Structure formats: structure tokens, C-alpha cells
């Protein structure tokens, strides 16, 4: 594969035919689909994604990118928010249905050697690529603290997700219906002041990630961000997914989606609008 700066050798992507094992609603407007995908399950690394073909025929044609949330044996889990045509189609899929995906794709999270304590900051669906990471960190003996936010209790994602892997979980809701009232960035600020942290990992709306990156930089803690772009090919060929960095334009699908926050030139016009 080209352009991949992965420290460990990443396995090349492949086209894999997968079967839906289960597909359930887990929060308001959010589903969790479990796919039997042995090759991807075996080769994926935390922070990588799969490019899923949801349509056949020609009404809409492009694949949709989704992070691999967690791996369970030969199965992978995808946590998805229902937004438009593609994710509505995904929500209608039932156990036994088949589809195909390309994966594993992209450059995932880096776990620096020797770290003792990591902070994971998720805004909304940003928890999606952090599930696998939390488990991997815990398995390596790294203490995990999680800050997660949502508009309200109903939209808060899988609260027990990090149970057993996180040492501490702090929750923020915009309306105060669960945890602290306010944004997750407020919680993040306090944690950065309270705890001795070696690394911050974040995913969520780009405006939130930018604030977290600035907070981490202020506290002198290295930070990795996971950026979303509209993607056509997902494999590095079309240049639809570029991210501005101090090292020039990078492709989110192969050089990212995870980037060192220090190189990202934040450009908020690039976030696709979401509901």
C-alpha cells in the first residue's frame, strides 16, 4: 500500500463478502451492526475503517465508510448514526443479509511504547473508533480514562461500553440529563488538569476535536485525532478526502483517518454538515 506511515506493517485491504449477524438500535438514531467478517476481524487494527457497499443497482452508488468499533472473534461491530440514504439502508439490514466491504483501510491509532495513562475523548458517534482502542490499551496495561459527551441521556452512546476497560469514565450532556451539564470539552479540560496523562485520543465533530487538540497541546500532552471526510474510493486513488496538514495535503483514507493533531491545519469549512 502506498503512502502509509504505519509504524507496524498494515495488512493490505481486500474485498470481503460479509453477513449480518445482528443489527440493533442502541440509542436514539444509533444502531450497532455485527458482521461476520473473518478476514477483516483478523487483520484490522484499532482506528481503521471499512468501506461498505450498501446499495446495489444505481439509485445511489458510492460506498460508505465506517470505523470498526470492536472485534469479537470472526465478527466486527459497527456503530452507526442514521443520517441519510446509506445509513437508513444499513438500519434496515437483518441477520442473514449479505453485503460486501473493503477493509481494513486507513492508518489507525498509534500506541506509543511505554505509556501508562491515556485519555479518550469522544463526542457523540466519536466513540465508534475508540472501542477497540480502549480494549487494546487495557490489554497492554495502559490505564484508560474516558470522557464522552452527547446532547442528552437518550442519545448517549453505550454507557457501559468502556466498563471493564476504563479506569474512569466522565460523561457530559448538553442538558445535564446525565453526568456533567455542558460539553465534553469542559470535562476534558478538567481531566487534563487533574490527571497525569501520556496521550490523548479523540474523535467526534471536528470543531470539538480542534478544541481537544488545543487543550492537550496547552497541557503538553501529545494528541491524536480521527478526521472524517467525504470519501469516494476509500483506497487513496481519487483525492476526494484531503486533509490540510503542515506536511501538505494528506488523504484521510490512507494517511488518516488518524492524524497527529500537531500537523493538522484546522479548516472548519471542510466538515460536511450533519443534522
Amino acid at each position, binding site marked *: *500500500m*502506498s503512502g502509509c506511515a504505519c509504524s507496524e506493517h498494515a495488512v*493490505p*485491504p*481486500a*474485498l470481503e463478502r460479509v453477513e449480518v449477524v445482528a443489527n440493533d438500535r442502541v440509542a436514539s438514531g444509533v444502531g450497532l451492526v455485527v458482521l461476520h467478517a473473518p478476514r477483516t476481524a483478523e487483520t484490522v487494527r484499532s482506528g481503521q475503517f471499512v468501506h461498505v*457497499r450498501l446499495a446495489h443497482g*444505481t*439509485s*445511489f*452508488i*458510492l*460506498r460508505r465508510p465506517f470505523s470498526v468499533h470492536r472485534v469479537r472473534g470472526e465478527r466486527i461491530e459497527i456503530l452507526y448514526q442514521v443520517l441519510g440514504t446509506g445509513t437508513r439502508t444499513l438500519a434496515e439490514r437483518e441477520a442473514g443479509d449479505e453485503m460486501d466491504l*473493503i477493509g481494513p483501510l486507513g492508518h489507525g491509532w498509534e500506541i506509543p511504547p511505554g505509556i501508562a495513562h491515556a485519555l479518550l475523548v469522544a463526542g457523540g458517534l466519536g466513540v465508534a473508533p475508540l472501542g477497540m482502542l480502549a480494549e487494546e490499551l487495557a490489554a497492554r496495561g495502559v490505564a484508560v480514562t474516558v470522557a464522552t459527551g452527547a446532547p442528552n441521556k437518550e442519545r448517549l452512546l453505550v454507557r457501559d461500553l468502556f466498563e471493564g476497560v476504563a479506569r474512569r469514565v466522565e460523561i457530559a450532556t448538553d442538558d445535564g440529563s446525565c453526568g456533567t451539564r455542558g460539553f465534553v470539552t469542559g470535562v476534558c479540560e478538567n481531566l487534563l488538569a487533574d490527571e497525569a496523562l501520556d496521550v490523548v485520543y479523540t474523535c467526534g465533530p471536528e470543531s470539538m476535536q480542534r478544541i481537544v487538540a488545543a487543550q492537550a497541546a496547552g497541557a503538553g500532552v501529545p494528541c491524536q485525532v480521527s478526521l472524517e*471526510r*467525504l470519501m*469516494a*474510493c*476509500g*483506497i*487513496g*486513488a*481519487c*483525492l*476526494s478526502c*484531503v486533509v490540510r496538514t503542515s506536511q501538505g*495535503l494528506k488523504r484521510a483514507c*490512507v494517511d488518516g483517518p488518524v492524524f497527529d493533531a500537531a500537523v493538522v491545519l484546522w*479548516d472548519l*469549512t*471542510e466538515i*460536511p*454538515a450533519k*443534522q
Partner: protein
Amino acid sequence: MSGRVSHTVDMSVKLGELTLRTPVLTASGTFASGREFADFIDLERLGAVVTKGVSLEPWEGSPSPRIAETPSGMLNSIGLQNPGVEAFCEDDLAWLSSVDVPVIVNVSGHTVLEYVSVIERLEVEPRVDAYEINISCPNVDSGGMAFGTACTPAEEVTRACRAATSRPLIVKLSPNVTDIAEIARAVVASGADGVSLINTLLGMAIDIRTFRPKLARIVGGLSGPAIKPVALRMVWQVAGAVDVPVIGMGGITDTEDAVEFMLAGATAISVGTANFVDPTTVMRVTDGLAEFCRTRSIARVSNLTGAMRT
């Protein structure tokens, strides 16, 4: 002949002096230089790799968002982002030197001189088999499509490029014109050895929640199945107007589409947007074309070219 005789179909086609193993090519800008697809397909089974657009200096391309999905297709305004011809030679051509497949380099420029300078740099590269001159990109402010929408500038670029090389010269035509056959005749009269069409159709889309255009550049090029009937009509018109090979493209996703383009008069076909949907499309179409001919006892795939009955 008896159906029991299993004959092999001759899949080769001639693009002027260039003989291609198969009529299936990749559409510029949808396949990079092939490296990203090597995980999914055997590049050596392609008729040729048509590279992304290459300019003299590096181009930054357009701001994001650069794509928007539309019914049965997509809009793009990538804006010909590329690292410039020097980096292209060092990186892409060097990589391609280990792959046994003809290479057609897609050339872009803002000025006639720029097109010529790119060709001059590439002339010393043995790995280049032919040029495709892009006079039809809707995503750059000056040059690009401006050259392809009137006869005089199209003739000028073609003549200048012709003078710079004796390699096969293909000119890529814009569909954003009133009479595409007229432009085709003009570039052939100016020395083009072949024409390829269609490039994307200029279009746009607006997000009604934000009142903003879906593309940062507001307008972009439409590709994919949505444009196929328009592309097919234009290939048929151009094939009837010129006597050089025509490379047909626009929404080809399967064997049936490819056969239609050849029946309309295309000597070879290119797969573009479909590469994003299924990275193995070019292999499927190649196998499908061979099978199509075999089951109908058509000895040569080239017999399909222009074979539409009226």
C-alpha cells in the same frame, strides 16, 4: 461453427500504432496510477493504465468538500490536484516500470506552453506509451475545459502537442459543448491519433438544510451511470464524424455498458467512477466482454466496434 469448439476470442485492439491486449482502460483521475488497485486486480490484464492528470508544476486542487453524491452518480471538483510532472516521473512512472501494462499519461495545463512542457519532460521517459490531452476538465479556472469548448483553442493545443511528440496522441473531449462532432473533427485535423470521451458534465447540488452548495467550488463534474446515455450518444456521433479510434467512457459499470459503447463506435472503453464502487470492475468487464463474444462466436472483440444495426 459448432458450439462445442471452444475458441479463444481475440481481445486485442489497435489504437493507431499501439496494440492493446484488451479494450478495457481506466478513466483518468479515478485510478491514480494503478498502485492503489494492485491489491484488488491484476494490472497486467488491462488494455492500458490511463493516469491521473499531470501538470508541469504541482497543483493544490480545489478546496473541500470536493465530492457530492447525486442520483446514480457523483459530482467532483478535485481540481486536478497532482504533484507535477517531475514527481510523477520519479514516483508513479518508476513504480509502473515493474508492471507490464501500456501507460497513457493524461496531460493538463493552463496554457498551450504548459501542455507542451509536460510532454517534453515525458518524451525522455521510456515508460510512456501515449498521451491523452485533457482539454475538458471543468474544475480549473483557466485552461482545462476552456480549450475543449471551442474549435480554435482545441486545434491550437492539439497542433502544439502534435509537434512535441511522435507518440500516439489522444485528445479528451468535453461534453459541455453544442456540437461535439465539430470539435472532434477539428482536433483530428490538427493531428490527434484518437479521441476519448466523455469527460464529466458540468453540474451542481445544493444542501437545502444549510442553503450552501454541496461542493466548495459550487460547480463540478458529473460522472457515473447518470451520464451514460449522453456519453453513448456522443460516442456514436463522434465515431461517425472522424476516422480515428474513439475511446468511449461515461458511466460504464458492467459488460453490457461496455458492449453498448463498442457497438456505438468505440474501439476501446474506460471505466471511471465504477472503480470506486467495485475496485474489480475492470476485470469483471474484461472477462464479461470475452464471454460475450465467445457465446456469440464473435472471433475478435474489435468486431463489435461500430456494429450497431440501424
